[in-house]
């Protein structure tokens, strides 16, 4: 059972949300079916512990890693309890002619000379040293050393040294002693290898995903402008996960309103107790809320470093939510809803950045483009999101159009990738737009984006 509990620990480290109740279920199920058949065991644990399909892969990988180790340890266990004939023979050997084994004074030395299987001992030592807390690969040697110590390496080393340096003048080149020493050195090297292998395997089980989690946490907090190209891939999955989470939480919101058609059946039913006098009314109209979102993203030179991430989020949002219209602009406003629909994410982003990215900004032209393309479709259910830095190269900002947008829509959000105190510095005309935004916020990392969007959806 401890194996199962440890395995659940490993699953948790890898990011699977296993609750105590589920652990108990798993244990009960294992008690019913036993650990004998690997396939059954795998099925049982998957049924009780893995509740999301995305986690299936991690689960299978961990299961294979983990239970290979367990099986080995089990075999060793059996080997211990009923010593095999080889072992007996070896012991006999040691006891008879060659008394080198008898000479090995340290416990570990004796065990090694008698060629006992150390797997179980290693596993026990590892538990005692809390190997499962391993996080970084740099800790591997440290843990290997500690496990060796616990196995009794100190005494063994002392013995090896003692044999070399023993100042016994009468028979210094004792062939038996020499042989024993060589034997011990060799066995110790083998043991060290074995321990290192074990630590390596445990590191894979417990730390691989932990490391990734650290990285993800870091990415969520990191400033968008400072992210490396290398992080794009991971960032993409993070963004996607965030967008999906948001959509799952909010995409179906259903409200019963006290207006619309009277539901006669329900009303009569609700009032049957009052002899048919209609005290309570029941209404037919239930309204499914589906927030309508128009998102505009600046891709000009001044925001080029964060534009990719804003687009990434836009793409993911459109992917998971109905009724999102996406626009990009530098100087001309272009609708990219269709492009997003048709192209894979990488290609779409590449194409947008190539065709419209990095140009100089002209909010006036862009907004008048927006006026002609989309203003008519904005109504009181629409949320308009602008992702841009309001740096307009000293030109007129056509604030009047933004005012119209604000008046026609339910809400206007302005997300600025710059921090608040650099708004209005240089050619930024943020303060001109500010009166016509329901809220304007700096949006500098993924956490910000997630928080802001979650609010949009919650109150839509």
């Amino acid at each position: 059972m401890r194996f199962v509990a440890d395995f659940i620990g490993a699953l948790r480290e890898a990011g699977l949300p296993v609750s105590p109740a589920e652990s108990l279920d798993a244990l009960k199920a294992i008690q019913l079916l036993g650990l004998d058949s690997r396939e059954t065991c795998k099925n049982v644990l998957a049924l009780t512990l893995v509740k999301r399909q995305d986690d299936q892969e991690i689960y299978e990988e961990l299961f294979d890693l983990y239970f290979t180790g367990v099986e080995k340890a089990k075999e060793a266990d059996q080997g211990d309890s009923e010593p095999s004939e080889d072992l007996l023979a070896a012991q006999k050997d040691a006891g008879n002619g060659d008394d080198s084994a008898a000479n090995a004074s340290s416990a570990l030395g004796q065990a090694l000379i008698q060629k006992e299987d150390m797997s179980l001992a290693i596993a026990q030592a590892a538990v005692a040293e809390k190997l499962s807390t391993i996080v970084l690969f740099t800790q591997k040697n440290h843990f290997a050393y500690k496990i060796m110590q616990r196995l009794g390496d100190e005494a063994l080393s002392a013995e090896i040294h003692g044999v070399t340096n023993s100042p016994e003048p009468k028979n210094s080149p004792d062939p038996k002693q020499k042989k024993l020493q060589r034997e011990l050195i060799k066995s110790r090297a083998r043991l060290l290898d074995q321990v290192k292998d074990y630590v390596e395997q445990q590191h894979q089980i417990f730390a691989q995903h932990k490391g990734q989690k650290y990285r993800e946490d870091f990415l969520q907090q990191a400033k968008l402008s400072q992210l490396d190209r290398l992080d794009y891939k991971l960032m993409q999955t993070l963004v996607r996960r965030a967008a999906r989470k948001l959509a799952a939480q909010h995409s179906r919101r259903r409200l019963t309103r006290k207006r619309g058609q009277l539901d006669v059946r329900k009303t009569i039913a609700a009032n049957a107790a009052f002899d048919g006098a209609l005290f309570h009314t029941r209404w037919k109209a239930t309204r499914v809320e589906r927030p309508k979102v128009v998102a505009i993203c600046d891709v000009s030179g001044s925001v080029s470093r964060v534009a990719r991430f804003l687009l990434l989020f836009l793409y993911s949002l459109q992917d998971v939510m109905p009724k999102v219209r996406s626009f990009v602009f530098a100087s001309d406003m272009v609708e990219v809803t269709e492009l997003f629909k048709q192209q894979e994410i990488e290609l779409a982003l590449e194409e947008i950045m190539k065709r419209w990215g990095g140009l100089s900004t002209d909010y006036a032209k862009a907004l008048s483009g927006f006026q002609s393309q989309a203003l008519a479709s904005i109504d009181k259910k629409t949320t308009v999101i602008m992702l841009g830095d309001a740096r307009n190269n000293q030109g007129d900002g056509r604030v009047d159009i933004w005012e119209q947008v604000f008046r026609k829509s339910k809400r206007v959000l302005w997300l600025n990738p710059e921090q608040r105190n650099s708004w209005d510095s240089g050619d930024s005309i943020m303060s001109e737009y500010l009166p016509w935004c329901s809220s304007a916020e700096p949006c500098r990392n993924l956490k910000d984006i997630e928080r802001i969007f979650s609010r949009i959806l919650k109150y839509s």
Partner: protein
Amino acid sequence: MIIKHQEKIASPEIIQSRYEALGYICSNSVATAIYLACHLQKPILIEGPPGVGKTELAKITAAYLNAPLIRMQCYEGLDESKALYEWKYGKQLLYTQVLKEQLGDVLRGAKGLDESITRLHEFGDIFYSQEFLEPRPLLQALQSEDGAVLLIDEIDKADQEFEAFLLELLSDYQVSIPEIGTVKAVSTPIVMLTSNNTRELGDALKRRCLHLYIPFPDAALESRILATQVEGLDAQLREQIVAIIGKLRDMPLKKSPAVSETIDWARALLLLNVAELDSHWVKETLNLLLKFQDDIELVEPEIAALLKSLR
């Protein structure tokens, strides 16, 4: 649920072989899930692409255990009154009318309003008692004497509120009816929920269930399914069908053909007396496999290449 024949669920292997005899070929993980559901008395949440036999599994389980199958189809807007219970309003109304005259007898001799009310109270909430309760699927399942198999189909189509409402039922096999109190299951039913994953289900629901994912079957399993489901199908043709379907599932289709479509296709081919697959017949019957015009257009030019790769 009281299972009269314990030997029927003695081990996953027995379940697997008996189901096979009934015409449902299942993998080890499916059999294990059924076994655990019976022994741990936990609901199973079954996920997987449409047409892999999720609903069928519930039907076959009911048949195997000789229990009634109570099925509840979920949809947007499903609420308690359709899922759990409703009061028989008509009957309540009728009874109040009929009993109006009796009221005089009951209250005869009572002095003052207070005494009359007290007398009325003595009769309790007669209009909100079991007799006026119209049980809907969930309550039916709880009330069945010998247990039942309750199938909650396509739970992902229902609202989140309904999902939350199910939690009490799934963990404790009881429901609360405000006017009566808590109704406990007479005999714990076996509950199966199916989902097509159109929306992510809540963690609370998943935590209470065993989670079984049924993927598309591999070639060997599918071949066995075809053999049991479509009698008289030539073995060679069967292998060809399975191979083609496997290839189609690797293509980027809007909707990959599921097991049920494979079976339909095989039956159609059998009916048409097709001895060997050729591009003419595949083209003619493609609409049995693919349900989107886009998919058909995508696959049609590839048919010759697909058939060639089989040989």
